[in-house]
């Protein structure tokens, strides 16, 4: 009876096929891993923008290499057991030797993983401790980050300025962050710079980050927060110290008045507006929001207020304040930039 079932199972060719499939799969995984590493996103955690992410990446690397080792070992054991089983010699009674267990093996394969856990636990706990308080730094800037549906607001309590959607920081400075939320749970995440921390309503959370080099770092809300969650993107711009100081000065200065439509056009068609809006004959081809072609001829803004420069300025400063529930986040423009954008939009007859 037993032999009958052994008889119908495929013969040695089966093991060969299995090995071939396994090697093809292994090669494919390897090739894909390599290409996976080459394909870098602006939000890649694998690109180190500063010390916080560096510390995490060190642990991750340690874990990743250990994991690969465990993966190869255990999958190898499994494959070997299958192949060996397919070719096992038959005993006199036609059944494999009935082995019920082995206490020494049980101890062995409990103790070895326990050692592996100690090896990954030590760096984990060390880094966890180090990341949980702000390291001493001679240039520390405090920022309060408030999550809103669906944008982040950045307040600099010591500098008395604020911005939305773009966090301006000096490169190399320690950014000491408090996180809050004005509505639901959000999560502040700039993958190249640091791991995420949640903005929880009713609580103040804490994190720090440093951007080593000047540049733009992409970020995105990581905790599902409602309809606009996917569009809750923002950026961190790390400036040279003097450029950062200039930005702060500009924020503190009173608005200059008349805007320049040429600068406005650059801001709209080359900036974040174009991600959602389309304007005929320009690079702006977004589809998420309504098109802005012919905007100057429209009687109303977002169908709720009259299309006047004052209303448009209020809208561009904070759309949800004008129309609660709108999917449009505050575009994060300075007051001067708002004047440029108004000047440009009113050329769109």
């Amino acid at each position, binding site marked *: 009876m037993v032999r009958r079932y052994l008889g119908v199972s495929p013969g040695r060719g089966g093991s060969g096929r*299995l090995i071939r499939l396994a090697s093809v799969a292994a090669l494919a995984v390897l090739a894909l891993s390599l290409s996976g590493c080459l*394909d870098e996103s602006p939000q890649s955690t694998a690109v180190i923008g500063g010390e916080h992410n560096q510390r995490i990446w060190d642990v991750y690397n340690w874990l990743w290499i250990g994991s690969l080792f465990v993966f190869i070992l255990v999958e190898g054991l*499994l494959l070997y057991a299958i192949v060996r*089983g397919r070719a096992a010699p038959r005993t006199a*009674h036609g059944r494999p030797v009935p082995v*019920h267990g082995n206490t020494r*093996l049980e101890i062995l394969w409990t103790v070895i993983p326990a050692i592996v856990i100690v090896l990954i636990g030590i760096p984990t706990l060390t880094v*966890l401790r180090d990341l949980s308080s702000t390291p001493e730094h001679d240039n520390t800037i405090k920022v309060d980050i408030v999550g809103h549906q669906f944008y982040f607001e950045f307040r600099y309590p010591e500098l008395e300025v604020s911005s939305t959607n773009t966090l301006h920081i000096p490169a190399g400075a320690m950014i000491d962050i408090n996180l809050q939320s004005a509505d639901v749970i959000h999560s502040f995440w700039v993958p190249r710079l640091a791991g995420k921390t949640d903005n*929880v309503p*009713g609580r103040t959370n804490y994190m720090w980050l440093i951007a080593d080099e000047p540049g733009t770092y992409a970020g995105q809300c990581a905790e599902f927060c409602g309809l606009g969650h996917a569009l809750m993107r923002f950026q961190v711009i790390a400036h040279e110290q003097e450029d950062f100081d200039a930005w702060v000065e500009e924020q503190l200065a009173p608005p200059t008045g008349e805007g320049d439509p040429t600068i406005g056009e650059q801001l709209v068609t080359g900036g974040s507006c174009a991600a959602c809006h389309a304007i005929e004959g320009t690079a702006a081809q977004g589809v998420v929001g309504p098109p802005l072609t012919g905007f100057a001829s429209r009687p109303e803004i977002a169908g709720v207020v009259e299309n006047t420069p004052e209303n448009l300025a209020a809208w561009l400063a904070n759309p949800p304040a004008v129309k609660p529930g709108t999917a449009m986040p505050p575009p994060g423009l300075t007051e001067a930039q708002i004047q440029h954008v108004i000047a440009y939009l009113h050329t769109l007859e």
Partner: protein
Amino acid sequence: MASRVSVGPVPVTSEQTFAQPRGVWSWITTVDHKRIGILYLLTALFFFAVGGLEAMLIRVQLARPNSEFMSADTYNQMFTMHGTTMIFLAIMPLSGAFFNFLVPLMIGARDVAFPRLNAFSYWALLFGAIMINVGWLFGEAPDAGWFAYANLTSSAYSPGNNVDFWVLGIQILGLSSLAAAFNFLITIVNMRAPGMGMMRMPIFVWMTLITAILIILAFPALTVGVTMLMLDRFYGSNFFVPEAGGSPLLWQHLFWVFGHPEVYILILPAFGIISEVLPVFSRKPLFGYSAVVFAGAGIAVLGFSVWAHHMFTVGMGPVPNSIFAISTMLIALPTGVKIFNWIGTVWGGHVSLKTPMLFALGLIALFIVGGISGVMHASPPVDSQHQDSYFVVAHFHYVLFGGSIMGLFSGIYYWFPKISGRMYNELMGQIHFWLMFLGMNLTFFPMHWLGVQGMPRRIYTYDDSQGWNDWNMFVTIGMFVLVVSFVFFAANMLMSLVVGERAPDDPWDGATLEWAISSPPPVYNFRTIPLVTSRIPLWSEKYPEVYGGDDHGAHSYEQPDVDDEHGREHMVPGAHGDSHEHEAHDAHGHDDTIHLPNPSYWPLVTAGGIAIAFGGFLVSYIMVGVGVAMTVIGIFAWALEPAITYVAPTTSDDAAHDHHA
């Protein structure tokens, strides 16, 4: 056909021994654990297809950047319902199908302890599933994610009925799960055949027992949390409303105190299934039986001390994060013990790569990946990069698809002949496995890279500039490979039910009691209750020269008055001659008849009343009143009706008859 030494000369099918009641009404009133198991199976497969369709639509949306296939609103409903459906309406009921069909057969019982409560569990599941899904009809399916984080679920931020459908449906499903868990706990503790000590139970029965305990301990936390959410939404309380001093994090703690054990509720039944399949297709007893049992229990205990690893980024502080990091890493130890013992089972066995075995080995191979990535984000610093990214999506699909689903499909193929009485098509089964194994890796492995590349989960769109285009397209193509594999599965099942070869009683040379009876089993399962002297009762009987003298560490007592020959007759009950008819007397029979639970529609009425009462919260309090009245009437009528039918097993259709007690 006559596959075992101890089967009598004339194989007898169930139609000959007992006239199965027929027709829709007989299914509505059934309390037979096998029929309820089949209802669970069909319901679960239906919702597996629904959840799969939702996954397909999600992947179509994400195939291209800035896709306009779906709106944000629809997408949010889609991913919420995909998760909720797969967890509560596909994997859990699929496990439930096996608990129902197999546990009584494996422990040598005629049914579960409370057959009508069992029917109630099924109907409550069905109504809960309808409640959760009915929102689709109004374009208001649940849309706050399967873990429904407060305070996004508050009336202020989710004013529609979407979350209400979820809350009410989950309440009903919780009742269903709790009733089923108590039923199986009590069945397993009390109704094992003589000789089957705890340490002689099949591992699947052990894992069912542990899962039942997990459900009993974990679901109340969910029930409490969901009740608080109901009060917040319907009556303006403020448990989770921060403006009024409530705490959104309270919800997360309550949810994950349920939610993490839930992961083991989803995986342990699959572990139990492959612990049955691996020995049979290796022709070797399970390696390290006690270690596998205690590892399962260890996973269950540790499973209650790791919930906050879902919350490493909420700002608990370094001390709680360290503690939960360590407890989470520790859970790798018992899980590793299981994997090594499975490999030890295959090691040196005569491995036959039939479809059930392929799926069982597939579970091991894929669960290793999910287990390893689980240890990776047990590290809070690393988790702060992976949390809520596609890395986590990859991880839990390796655990739940590569683990649970692979194991459950191993079970479907393994027990298909027993359940349906037909053989499935082996070639199509093999094609299904290889396409599914390939498609699974093509779909879910690249998600690790998308996560490392910073792609958050639950986003309905992404921009070209974010650099995720290629892998998302790749993943969507991989998903279609998975879809094709399930076409083979569906075709195989449907064709085999109609034209499949008649299944013998014991097609796989099985070791456990369910293979001693006909395929499909007679309505009373065992004509005489078997006497169990071994962990592998059928093998001990079929191969006494190999396993006969073996001490399996479980021979807790002798059976002095049963000789070998006699014991075998005991083992293979059913109508194989009349010489031992008199044995039906002892404790289990009523003269020469077998007592079986009476069909009843009261469980359906009771479950329907509960569903109407909960549904009333969305319609009117009159409806709540009607539902409560129905429930109360249902419970009383259920308590007062006669519970038992006596049937006489005979070899003739006409002689099958019922006596009401």
